[in-house]
């Protein structure tokens, strides 16, 4: 080893050790913050966590700009990314409320062998609805989670909660790295991009929740990378990998799949445009038509979704918003989308800043690549710019000209973020390298006291200023950006998450009931039930989250808790025991006390500890059907 490099290597190792210690410390702080009763992670996260994470991120950024091996740097970024995406999984006992619990509720049916004659577990109305269920994405995620849970011999809950944070944390940074390299970025830039992808709040949020859409986003990113490779390669393996990643993106979620296939068509058009020696006008018109066609696929697919007998609303094109909304609101929606609706400035800035830098970077790179050596990457830059533009257009079509969509349009921001991250990294690296060039031009032969004495004061100040900017200001700004993004990515306001006593109650029923049973509860109880036994499980029946019958039964029981509704629930679900769960924080103290006293008056029996669960904040009432009834 070069002797002059030894002190540097030693410093690097010390920094790496320090980083590892800080990351371990951060993980342990998250574990300490674990709670069974909170609305948001910010209520309970240990006050030392954010400073520790900030320091770790600062060190990681400094490691990135060293000559450390790429594999080592990427490993650090992966660990960092897993930590950033694990807040929900580590802090809340049942993960984030709603979406991921609904997915777990259905995966549970597979894990508990409640599905015995092929997916879906509920009767299919027609062959089209069956095919629709197969390709819904939830099926793929359920299969993957169950296979992994069985392999590891652990409960499905643990696999489900950690599936997306780990897969996202491990594979999204790598996809960002490879995409940036494909744009002509150096390894340092690519590494930067792999970390920067966590600075986009929407992307971070989707990386933290275990839903099939998140799985689809991961495969979408790989399909994008393989498309870039395809643009200048005739290798059949690259083509196969590109198509395969698009297919898996579709299998995971229709939104990500449709976006992948739309961009695949655009990539085909770019490639054929490159091959054919047509006139400039013909080529431009061809590309324009291809762009319009690709951009129209997503909005049209929502319309064609109506061919399938699905439970969600029907999407339609409409001009209603243009006619009914005030002009300022239309302009706001067009420019900022959902952000136009009263988000605070910090949130808006953190969501907008990345894509905005990316747009500027794209324009600069396209201009520069016209006559520079990086021209070979021009087609990649052009393609990604077109993809970015396509997403901007699609978002505005969905937001302004469509209604009844089965998902919120803001999910498109994640695609946008994936494309933006490499361009932001390229822009930041361009600034860093220009500062380095200035420093080199100014630098004294060696930085010693004697050399400083002979230099002018102004020169010394500029050198020190540049050194400070490169070694302190940039890493601090980047670490600050990442940490600030987390405050937007993880909600500041949320309903009470699934509590420990709701989970305890569901577990208690499951452990002590040996007959088929049904549980009448509010939607929060159903979420808790999904975590432990699943939804629509014929052995332990919880109604679907938004099932009208289930809702009516709970409403009627809340108004007049009596055996009548419990018997009805048992008849409807072919069960022998019915439970009714009420929780004080969900209902409010007054309603809760009223229902408890009324239920006792009507002769319902308390199930489990007489003082209830959670120090009296949750009661279970039960009734067992007699054989002659």
């Amino acid at each position, binding site marked *: 080893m070069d002797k002059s490099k030894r002190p540097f290597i030693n410093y690097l190792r010390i920094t790496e050790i320090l980083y590892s210690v800080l990351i371990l410390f951060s993980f342990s702080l998250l574990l300490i913050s674990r709670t069974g009763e909170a609305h948001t992670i910010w209520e309970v996260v240990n006050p030392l966590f954010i400073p520790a994470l900030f320091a770790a991120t600062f060190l990681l950024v400094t490691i990135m700009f060293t000559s450390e*091996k*790429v*594999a*080592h740097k*990427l490993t650090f970024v992966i660990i960092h990314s897993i930590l950033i995406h694990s807040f929900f999984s580590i802090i809340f006992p049942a993960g984030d409320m709603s979406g991921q619990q609904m997915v777990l509720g259905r995966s549970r049916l*597979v*894990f508990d*062998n409640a*599905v*015995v*004659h*092929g*997916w879906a577990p509920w009767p299919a109305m027609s062959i089209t609805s069956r095919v629709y269920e*197969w390709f819904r994405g939830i*099926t*793929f*995620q*359920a*299969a*993957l989670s*169950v*296979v*992994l849970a*069985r*392999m*590891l*011999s*652990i409960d499905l809950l643990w696999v489900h909660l950690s599936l997306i944070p780990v*897969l996202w944390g*491990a*594979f999204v940074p*790598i996809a960002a790295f*490879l995409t940036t390299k494909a744009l002509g970025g150096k390894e340092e830039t690519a590494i930067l991009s792999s970390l920067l992808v966590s600075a986009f709040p929407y992307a971070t949020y989707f990386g933290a929740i275990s839903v099939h859409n998140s799985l689809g986003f991961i*495969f979408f990113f*790989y399909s994008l990378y393989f498309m870039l490779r395809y643009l200048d390669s005739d290798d059949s*393996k690259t083509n196969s*990998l590109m198509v*395969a990643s698009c297919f*898996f993106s579709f*299998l995971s979620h229709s939104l990500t799949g449709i976006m992948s296939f739309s961009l695949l068509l655009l990539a085909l058009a770019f490639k054929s445009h490159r091959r054919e020696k047509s006139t400039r006008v013909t080529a431009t018109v061809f590309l324009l038509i291809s762009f319009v066609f690709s951009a129209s696929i997503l909005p049209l697919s929502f319309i064609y979704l109506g061919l399938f007998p699905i439970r969600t609303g029907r999407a339609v094109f409409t001009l209603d918003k243009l006619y009914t909304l005030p002009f300022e609101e239309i302009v706001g929606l067009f420019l900022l989308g959902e952000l136009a609706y009263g988000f605070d400035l910090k949130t808006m800035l953190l969501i907008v800043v990345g894509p905005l830098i990316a747009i500027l970077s794209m324009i600069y790179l396209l201009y520069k690549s016209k006559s520079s050596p990086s021209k070979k990457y021009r087609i990649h830059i052009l393609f990604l710019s077109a993809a970015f533009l396509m997403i901007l257009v699609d978002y505005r079509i969905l937001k302004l000209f469509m209604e009844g969509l089965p998902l919120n349009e803001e999910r498109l921001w994640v695609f946008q973020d994936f494309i933006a991250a490499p361009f932001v990294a390229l822009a930041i690296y361009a600034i860093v390298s220009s500062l380095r060039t200035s420093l080199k031009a100014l630098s004294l032969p060696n930085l010693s006291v004697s050399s400083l004495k002979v230099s002018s004061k102004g020169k010394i100040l500029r050198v020190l200023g540049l050194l400070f900017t490169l070694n302190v200001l940039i890493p601090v700004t980047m670490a600050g950006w990442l940490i600030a993004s987390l405050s937007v990515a993880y909600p500041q306001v949320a309903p009470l998450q699934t509590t420990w006593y709701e989970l305890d109650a569901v577990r208690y029923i499951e452990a002590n009931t040996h007959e088929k049973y049904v549980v009448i509860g509010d939607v929060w109880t159903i979420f808790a039930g999904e975590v432990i036994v699943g939804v629509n499980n014929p052995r332990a029946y919880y109604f679907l989250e938004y099932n009208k019958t289930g809702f009516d039964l709970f409403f009627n029981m809340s108004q007049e808790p009596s055996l009548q509704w419990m018997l009805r629930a048992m008849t409807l679900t072919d069960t022998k025991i019915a439970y009714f769960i009420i929780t004080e924080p969900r209902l409010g103290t007054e309603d809760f006390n009223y229902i408890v006293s009324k239920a006792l008056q009507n002769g319902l029996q308390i199930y489990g500890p007489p003082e209830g669960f959670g120090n009296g904040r949750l009661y279970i009432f039960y009734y067992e059907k007699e054989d002659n009834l």
Partner: protein
Amino acid sequence: MKRAFGFGTIEKSVVDDKRLLYTIASYSAVLAIFANLSSLQSPFIGPMMSIIYFVINALFLGNALFKKEEAFFRFMFGMLSLILLLGFVGWLTLIIYNLDIARVTLVLLAVATLSSLLNMRMKNRNGQK
């Protein structure tokens, strides 16, 4: 890059798969997982055997599909491919029937066989012995 991970030698040994030693090891891991699920129920056997299964088959797939990549990316791509294959074969099994313990074992065996065959195909193509 090979030394960077300290498993350059392990990778070569696994990918060479002399006398199908690693393929057999992968099958043995699956059988151990099956035995654990059916009767032993140990919290240690499952994770241990899964690690063995993942490392061997990720290296097989990485070598078969991403030979030209650097070792780190080869391994990570191999891991991603393995997860995708497990998900895909599991998905097929689920839509046809279900994913009970026996069928998950079959899924694991099918994926291990496919990975080993792809690795062998690549080995033969490159004339490795």
